[in-house]
């Protein structure tokens, strides 16, 4: 069978608990060797989606395939190609780091020798060698997560699910984790990551699916999403308030914000190529010197707020 372009494909995924509809028809695809980030607030349905895709949870309707295997009819085939790192570190607290790795390796059907060798390799790679013979309950939060991730990589699965892998970590440990995840991507692993941190999705993911209230509300690359909502802004800073005042007068309606303390004026630019030049030309014509300038791209925060805000308003309309 020819390998499909997509390692994970979910179509019209629905799941309810009693009358509570948790997923209202989720569609998503993860392209081979890339990362898709599932971005959404708490309770949006991220974890439910991951649990379904990784065979842990039954669902009501829709189809899900991982590496071409249906999660409902061929769960064992799916399980042999996936690794899962959940929100709470799923490691055995009474076993040592090494014992955890070897045990999970054996359960992944690795031979004894392979499991041991791979465990050693991961302990080194994840900087857990010194704590390898200590029970996992003595580990720090960051070390626990590293061990947890190492465990899910024991059989080098081509598909990885990371459910909020950095929630609750300190900034330093989060950066470490990002580094590890980036190197996994570089090695060709396909990853589905869930996160509530916009920066994380922005930093790591090739594509982002924003979900809220069990529905996909936006999809695309980080810059596509940003373009969809916000416009780029050009912030100009001047030497003194006299030049600032002149500039504001020259640019007229284009100025959306001016700050006398910072001596800056902000202009919306629709097209980076033409609008920036135009703005600068207008100032140059009047011989107004510019002290500094920066282009601000909209952040995912802007995207997220505006998207989920819109969603709320749309719902209110439905209610009426």
């Amino acid at each position, binding site marked *: 069978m020819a390998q499909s372009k997509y390692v994970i494909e979910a179509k019209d995924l629905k799941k309810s608990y009693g009358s509570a509809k948790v997923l209202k028809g989720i569609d998503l695809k993860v392209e081979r060797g890339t990362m898709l980030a599932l971005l959404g607030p708490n309770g949006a349905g991220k974890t439910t989606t991951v649990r379904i895709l990784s*065979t842990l949870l039954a669902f009501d309707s829709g189809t899900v395939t991982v590496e071409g295997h249906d999660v409902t009819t061929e769960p064992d085939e799916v*399980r042999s190609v996936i690794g899962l790192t*959940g929100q709470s570190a*799923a490691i055995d607290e009474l076993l040592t780091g090494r014992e955890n790795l070897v045990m999970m390796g*054996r359960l992944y059907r690795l031979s004894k020798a392979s499991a041991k060798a791979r465990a050693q*390799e991961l302990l080194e790679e994840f900087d857990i060698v010194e704590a390898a013979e200590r029970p996992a309950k003595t580990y720090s939060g960051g070390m626990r997560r590293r061990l947890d991730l190492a465990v899910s990589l024991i059989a080098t699965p081509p598909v990885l699910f990371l459910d909020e892998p950095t929630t609750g970590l300190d900034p330093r440990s989060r950066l470490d984790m990002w580094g590890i995840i980036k190197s996994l991507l570089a090695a060709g692993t396909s990853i589905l990551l869930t996160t509530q941190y916009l920066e994380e999705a922005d930093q790591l993911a090739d594509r982002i699916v924003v979900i809220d209230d069990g529905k996909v509300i936006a999809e695309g690359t980080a810059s596509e999403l940003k373009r969809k909502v916000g416009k780029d802004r050009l912030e100009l800073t001047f030497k003194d308030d006299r030049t600032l005042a002149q500039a504001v007068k020259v640019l007229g309606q284009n100025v959306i914000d001016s700050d006398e303390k910072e001596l800056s004026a902000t202009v919306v630019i629709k097209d980076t190529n033409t609008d920036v030049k135009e703005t600068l030309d207008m100032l140059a014509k009047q011989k107004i010197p510019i002290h500094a300038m920066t282009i601000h791209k909209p952040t995912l925060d802007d995207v997220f707020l505006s998207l989920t805000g819109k969603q709320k308003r749309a719902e209110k309309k439905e209610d009426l």
Partner: protein
Amino acid sequence: MAVPLVFEKRSKTFMAFNDSFIMIKRSGLHIIRNRDQLLGAFFQPIMFLVLFASVFGGAISKALPPGVTYLNFLMAGIIVQTTAFGSTTTAIAVCNDLQKGIVDRFRSLPMSNLAVLNGHVISDLFRNSISTLVMLLAGLVIGFRPHASLTDWLLIAGILFLFTLAFSWLSAIVGVMAKSVEGVQWLTFVLVFPLTFASTAFVPAQGMGRILKAFAVNQPITQVVEAVRALILGTPIGNHGWLAVAWSVGILVIAMPFASWLFRRKTLS
């Protein structure tokens, strides 16, 4: 990756056994690492034995058949009580696993789901064997004098083995159904305590009221106690041996698939 990985390619059945084996090893390591529990497995039986023998001995020995000391009478009862309570560790272990994320991890692996339960049940068997041996040795020190032959001891081991297995699977059900570890402790206590005390484990049935006696002489714990006691004292075993085995096998046949079904259902929704 630097290390080339070799995967086992064996039959499904072989791998299922292998999974259980790995999980038994895991639970076994838990027994060793969990020092408080291990100390309990050593000292609780000794404490019970000494307390019961010295507190009840004088009063109850008059009701015993001539020539039978209370310690010799008590031994079977206290062994069965200890194994019954020991089996409830399965419930705690299963509940613990379910509360933490580790069951999800196991379930995301291509392993046999039941291996998790198997691991806990079988490791209970180990711990119970340790407790029983400790108790027998302590008993010998304070004056326990069994009349059992080697064959009798093997039969005793067999009966206790089946009984522990049956009770551990029962307690696996409790472990899957309970919402918290505290709940498990409370539930197993309420289930096991009356069963062991409303039996002939510590006193002969003669002195009990009519209803209590009817319950006591017919319930499974009494059958197991009486079978083991007859083998220890070298007295006729009557129907107790068969009934003990029948109860254990009966419980096992129902509890094992039920626990497995519950576990699967619980972990899927």
